[in-house]
């Protein structure tokens, strides 16, 4: 049985019977180091004083167990002498010690062990000596206590506490008056005491970085309750520290990874001054970092071009290690205190989600099919989308991950929508990831081939060799740099452990998340050594200013305030009469596929987004519209089916005329049945066969064994002769407008709808899709709203009308 050494049980602390902090429930194990952190006046000292019996608890109990085998006793049942043998303290505040020498003060610690008159025996004297030696203060023995420096005084007081031979030591800001050296010394002594002698340490510190490094557990104290309690790595992230200390985000932040305080203005200054603490991968390469402005914040004013260092990571084909290396590089950039914005070429949802959830970096899709260069809507070009994301997230470097092979585009026709196309349109330097396993010299012609194929406008500038050995690297680098004009940025050695399994992402579980993060950290560790970071940044910096045709023309409404990548529900805006319509957006483990730009577009049209979970929540939030995106409803079919209340609510809202927009997974959810086959069932007690979904739309969805109607599409309204088009007044796609999107699903429905025609680029194949029924518009296609702003506007407008009813 692992009993706690000290147990705070529903403790309420305060002065004079007035509670300051209540509900304190903490158990401290033997030998643990627990640190309280929090702003001034938050009550840390109050808690400590209550533990040391200086203050009487206002409520609750404190239990202390003397030996490992004894049962815990209430703190107030200890006699003062007994408690003194168990607990020693070190407090703030000056002492008036008159003529006491340092040794006298230290020897005071023997109080509980000396006789009636307090005369020290030889054994006591020895212990005093040892304690003084432990704090390196023996030379101060005969000096008067008030004649030594603050730091020396603290050490003597620590020696005193050591002399008391406690099992638990309580310290109130022990490092306050100390310089760095003494801080470290004191904390290292405490650490030794905890580890070697099993002494429990409970203290309060102002220096969060030290607290993080030394503590087994951190308790954040703020306000009326304990703010957070747990391992430093778990609870001390930038966000928590910001909330705990009420930091002004304009001024700076606390970088939890490095445990340092970052000042924004200082950050920019130092990096602009080419004073970059980066390591070079290969020794012998001379040269300092150039004076190039590597990280100015993106130009925010309404100008014609934007200056942002950027890179594309592309590859000859899938499976080269592109994703792996991109993630590793992003983590590396994070470590170097950059604020990267990540992008994924193409329509895929998974990689941006990965960037957001695992790395914590804002990420969105860049697709030149969705956002063609000749688009009339100038806000919907790739450069505009890139610029928007960079500005919104205050990023100082952009990393675009390519898709498939560098030149692979929309299938059979040209190179449209390929990574190459995107690199051209955004004028981004490209680094090619080459899987060079089993190759040596042959990498050279491969690379030349790729480079030459670009013809005039060469974007490929660098290469990273994957799966080669450290020994081969210098040789291959030499070859490449002699025979091509590419720069070898670095390599990644072969490492089996570095691959994560299926990137079948819904919302990640915490264990999966930690696992992945650890792997990425390891990857970043490796890359730190094998990548020439300066060359990397230099290359990013060669990206010229990107011309962006008036990308900031629309009035921003809600888009700026809430990053739509979060799961937060917006606070109740009952007071704001001019608030836009609220759209309930499904977001949980079953529904998670949304383009950032789509959600942003809705906000720009004036809508307010509120997120809910069809799996977990029993009720829809108050809303004027419903958006159901794609995801993995088949994996949570059972839970969705069992959530009758939610389904009923959706039906009811729809019947009352609430506008509904659904795609892919959301579409499947609205239909009558979802039929799972053997391989998918059993996930959460689902029926082997049929799960009842909302039943709002007719149809049954069934799994097939291959992708159905896969690929890019362009949607337009069908010419209105047939019956379904009669109710087309409620459709959001206007006559003559076309909206772009793509389809990616293994499921198919018995009723896919026929309100629209979907056409593949190149015009050869087309099919019917989209069910439009009163106020509902749903179908398998994933739509990209920016390709037709009128669509989003129509939806939001319908929601607005509904809200006025």
């Amino acid at each position, binding site marked *: 049985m692992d009993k706690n050494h000290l147990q705070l049980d529903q403790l309420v602390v305060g002065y004079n019977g007035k509670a300051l902090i209540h509900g304190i429930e903490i158990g401290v194990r033997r030998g643990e180091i627990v640190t309280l952190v929090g702003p001034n006046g938050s009550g840390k000292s109050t808690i400590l004083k209550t533990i040391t019996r200086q203050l009487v608890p206002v409520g609750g109990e404190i239990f202390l167990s003397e030996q490992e085998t004894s049962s815990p006793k209430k703190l107030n049942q200890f006699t003062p002498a007994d408690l003194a043998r168990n607990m020693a303290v070190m407090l703030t*505040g000056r002492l008036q010690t008159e003529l006491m020498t340092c040794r006298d003060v230290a020897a005071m610690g023997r109080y509980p062990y000396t006789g009636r*008159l307090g005369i020290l025996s030889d054994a006591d004297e020895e212990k005093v*000596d040892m304690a003084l030696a432990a704090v390196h203060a023996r030379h101060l023995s005969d000096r008067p206590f008030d004649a030594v420096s603050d730091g020396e005084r603290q050490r003597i007081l620590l020696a005193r506490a050591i002399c008391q031979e406690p099992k638990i030591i309580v310290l109130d800001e022990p490092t306050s008056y100390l310089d760095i050296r003494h801080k470290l010394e004191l904390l290292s002594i405490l650490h030794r005491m905890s580890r070697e002698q099993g002494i429990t340490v409970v203290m309060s510190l102002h220096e969060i970085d030290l607290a993080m490094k030394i503590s087994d557990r951190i308790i954040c104290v703020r306000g009326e309750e304990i703010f957070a309690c747990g391992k430093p790595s778990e609870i001390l992230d930038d966000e928590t520290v910001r909330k705990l200390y009420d930091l002004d985000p304009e001024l700076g932040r606390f970088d939890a990874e490095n445990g340092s305080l970052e000042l924004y203005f200082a950050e920019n200054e130092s990096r602009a001054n080419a004073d970059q603490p980066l390591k070079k991968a290969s020794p012998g390469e001379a040269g300092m970092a150039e004076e190039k402005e590597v990280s100015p914040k993106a130009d925010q004013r309404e100008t014609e071009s934007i200056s942002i260092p950027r890179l594309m990571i592309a590859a000859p084909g899938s499976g080269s290690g592109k994703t792996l290396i991109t993630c590793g590089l992003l983590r590396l950039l994070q470590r170097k205190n950059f604020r990267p914005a990540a992008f994924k070429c193409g329509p895929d949802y998974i990689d941006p989600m990965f960037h957001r959830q695992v790395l914590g970096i804002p990420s969105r899709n860049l697709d030149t099919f969705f956002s063609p260069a000749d688009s009339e809507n100038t806000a919907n070009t790739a450069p505009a989308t890139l610029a928007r994301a960079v500005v919104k997230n205050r990023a100082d470097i952009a990393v675009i991950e390519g898709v498939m092979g560098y030149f692979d585009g929309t299938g059979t026709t040209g190179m449209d929508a390929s990574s190459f196309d995107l690199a051209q349109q955004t004028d981004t330097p490209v680094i090619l990831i080459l899987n060079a396993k089993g190759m040596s010299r042959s990498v050279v012609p491969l690379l030349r081939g790729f480079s030459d194929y670009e013809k005039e406008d060469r974007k490929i500038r660098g290469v990273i060799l994957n799966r080669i050995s450290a020994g081969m690297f210098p040789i291959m680098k030499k070859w490449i740099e002699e025979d091509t004009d590419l720069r070898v940025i670095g390599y990644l050695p072969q490492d089996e452990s570095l691959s994560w399994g299926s990137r079948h992402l819904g919302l990640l579980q915490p264990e999966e998340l930690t696992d992945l993060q650890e792997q990425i950290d390891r990857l970043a560790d490796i890359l730190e050594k094998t990548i020439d970071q300066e060359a990397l940044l230099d290359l990013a910096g060669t990206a010229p200013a990107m011309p962006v045709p008036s990308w900031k023309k629309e009035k921003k409404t809600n888009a700026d305030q809430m990053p739509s990548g979060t799961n937060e529900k917006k606070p109740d805006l009952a007071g704001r009469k001019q608030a836009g319509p609220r759209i309930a957006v499904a977001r949980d483990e079953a529904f998670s596929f949304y383009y950032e730009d789509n959600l942003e577009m809705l906000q720009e049209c004036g809508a307010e987004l509120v997120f809910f979970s069809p799996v977990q929540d029993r009720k829809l939030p108050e809303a004027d519209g419903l958006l159901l995106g794609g995801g993995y409803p088949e994996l949570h079919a059972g839970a969705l089916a069992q959530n009758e209340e939610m389904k009923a609510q959706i039906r009811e809202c729809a019947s009352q005329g609430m506008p509904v927009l659904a795609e892919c997974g959301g579409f499947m959810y609205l239909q009558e049945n979802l039929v799972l086959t053997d391989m998918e069932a059993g996930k959460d007690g689902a029926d082997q066969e049929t799960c009842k979904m909302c039943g709002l739309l007719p149809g049954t969805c069934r799994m097939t064994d291959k992708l159905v109607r896969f690929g890019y599409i362009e949607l337009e309204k069908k010419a209105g002769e047939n019956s379904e088009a009669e109710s087309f007044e409620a459709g959001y796609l206007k006559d003559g407008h076309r909206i772009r999107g793509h389809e990616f699903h293994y499921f198919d429905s018995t009723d896919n709808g026929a309100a629209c025609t979907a056409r593949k680029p190149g015009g050869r194949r087309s099919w019917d899709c989209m069910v439009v029924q009163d106020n509902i518009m749903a179908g398998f296609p994933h739509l990209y709203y920016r390709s037709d702003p009128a669509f989003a506007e129509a939806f939001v407008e319908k929601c607005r009308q509904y809200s006025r009813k």
Partner: protein
Amino acid sequence: MDNLQRPEYAHAKALRRTRYTVVFAALAAAFLAMIILNINTGSVSIPVARILRILFLRQGEANEVSIIWKIRMPRILQAAILGGALALSGFLLQTFFGNPIAGPFVLGISSGTKMCVAVVMILLIGRFGTASSWALILAAFAGAMISTAFILAVSRSVRHMAALLVAGIMIGYICSAVTEFLVTFAEDSDIVNLHGWSQGSFSGADWSGTGTAAIIVGIAFVCVFLLAKPIGAYQMGEEYARSMGVNIKRFRMELILLSGVLSACVTAFAGPISFVGIAVPFLVKRALGTSKPIVVIPAAFLGGAVFCMVSDLIARMAFSPTELNISTVTSILGAPIVIYMLIRRNR
């Protein structure tokens, strides 16, 4: 490591021990010297040889025996005992308030005691004609406790020690004013007693009084000595003392009670005497070079005794036959010391 350690601290320890021995020896010598001097001094001159015979053989002229035994000895002893008591009382108050300028007189405790004694004395003598020393002591004790309670109440509301001292002085004034008031309206006979007593003098010493004082002070001394350990811890501050196992509530009570008893005793027998409680502990600590209670307590007692005996001698003989108020003498001797203390502190 052992061998390297022992000589170091043992050396320092030996040095300190030596110093203590020297100081104690000096004090003892001074004590004896003062006794001798005091015995020898008086308006009637008696040669040393005869003094010795009277003291040790109880042989001599009835007159001289009377003088020695009935007048001089009790006075000397009382001066010694009460001097020691004052020093101890001061020491206890300094520990309690954590300030070396605290003392029974300066905090107004003596004056409050005096006022209470005056009231009781006038009442009792008015009713019963006499006032036994026990009654006076009890009255003095009550007065001491009341004044101490008042000072305690004030000390809770003020942060600065200086404010506390000012309060004490004010209390002293108020109590003196009240006492004066009573004196104005009392019977002549009462006044005589009161006045003589209130002057603060050992001249009224007799064996019964001295004996009582000796018993009370003796017991108090032992109690204080046994408190040496927690007092030492308390010097580090209340929080640390508590964390080391001192029962703070009980301890503070004990301090206040003992201090009250001691100063009440002095005031009851000799009236308010100033500055001994502050000057003596200070001097003794400086001489010893330490503030360790276990050493300071006996030394302060001895020192107080010596100090008072010296003052008494001066009071008696300086302007013979007029006897000075002993407070005058102790002030002249003690105040400069206190001023010196203050100056040193501010440096």
